[in-house]
């Protein structure tokens, strides 16, 4: 399993909501489902998928992993941003956009936090500047402490 995980590479377009629904239908017993995703897709289908997992009695942990640049928006001056899946491009003055972008990303994360709280899902926001092993260990210890 670890070998499989280590060989994973980002390719093509992805849809996380159908994947979650598919996994839910595949699991016959109550299981622990750990989701690692940037969740950069429409929120409603993902919410529905997460709700279905919970409805089926699975314990769900949602690791919301974003790139450090997506969390901090460290760009300066004129930049051309390209969405890798759709190849859509946008040319902007990064300095003038930072505040608005950070507000948007904060709303985006808060949506998941609220939804997960209401559905009994553990929501763990991460970004690539963090040390994953340390972040995961800290989360698991806190989860164990909660019982």
């Amino acid at each position, binding site marked *: 399993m670890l070998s499989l995980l280590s060989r994973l590479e980002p390719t093509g377009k992805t849809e996380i909501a159908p994947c979650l629904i598919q996994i839910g239908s595949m699991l016959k017993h109550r299981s622990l489902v750990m989701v690692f995703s940037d969740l950069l897709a429409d929120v409603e289908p993902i919410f529905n998928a997460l709700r279905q997992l919970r409805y089926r009695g699975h314990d769900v942990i949602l690791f919301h992993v974003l790139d450090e640049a997506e969390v901090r928006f460290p760009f300066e001056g*004129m930049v051309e941003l390209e969405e*890798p899946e759709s190849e859509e491009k*946008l040319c*902007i003055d990064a300095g003038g*956009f930072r505040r608005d972008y950070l507000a948007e990303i904060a709303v985006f994360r808060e949506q998941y936090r609220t939804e997960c709280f209401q559905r009994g899902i553990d929501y763990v926001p991460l970004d690539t500047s963090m040390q994953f092993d340390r972040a995961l260990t800290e989360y698991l210890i806190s989860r164990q402490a909660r019982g």
Partner: protein
Amino acid sequence: MEFVHPALLGGAALAAVPIILHFILRQKPKRFEFPALRFVQQRRQVNQRRMRLQHLLLLALRIAAICLLAVALARPSMRASGVIADQEAPVAAALVFETAPHMGYRHENQSRLEVAQEIALKLLSDFPHESQVAVLDTRGQPGVFQVDLGAARQRIERLELTPVTQPILTAVDEALRLLGEATQQRREIYIFTDLTAASWSTEAREELNKRLSPLPQLGVYVVDVGVLKPQNFGLGEIRLSSQVLAQNSPLVVSTDLVARGTEGDRGVVLEMLDIHGKPQKRNQETWKLADGQPQSVEFSVGGLPIGTIRANCGLSARMAWLATIYATSRSKFKTVAGG
């Protein structure tokens, strides 16, 4: 509004620099892969509008800053303001001094001419260094602009009363001629006078108005160095009992002591000049005076030597002279040995 260095206004053309930078030399954007692009898109319209406004505002501020800098370097100045010599622009100034004998009247131990000189020197120190200054008096001589402010200062310090003077309008005419030749935009004329009725008759005032009315941009300042309540003590004509005296007979010197605009005690002194011309006090008496009422003064001097004798008769306590209309009355008289 005038500019001292109008050529520097051309520096405002540099305002084109931020425009070129803003519209033409735009920075080439760096490319990044960014999966969260949709969050940027959501705010793009509002943000772009705001950013465009900010950029235009910034551009306007940069242009305004460059234009203001160019205007400041060109040194703007206002013509003929109401405040005397308070501007930095060089001035062409003509200082006209009345130097008639009445300018020698003293008040608080200063003659009117001295007061005028003091004010003029102060004024001169306030003029910008590049200023052209002409100093004229009522002697009727042609005026010239002094070489520099130092020369103008010396000229003012050397001004003296002149017994025969031209009307003040003659000096004003000369000043206007000089100012007409000046290159400076800011031109001012200062007239130092005690405004005596003799110098400033109704006709003289009308004439001055006529000369100045076609010159609205000329700054005209009349500096009144007279006093509101003049106080004069004076001696009248000196009368001698005789031009030729018999030996050992006394000489009687008489005159009238007059006070105008004041009253009080005033002393009169009679001094004989010795063979070296040095004054020796012979008599001094004090009389009580009422305003406008002459007081007869009489000295009797005996024991005069044989020969020609010179004497001065004048008011005592020079330092306390309040008025100088009859400042010094001097008389020379002779005694000849009689038989």
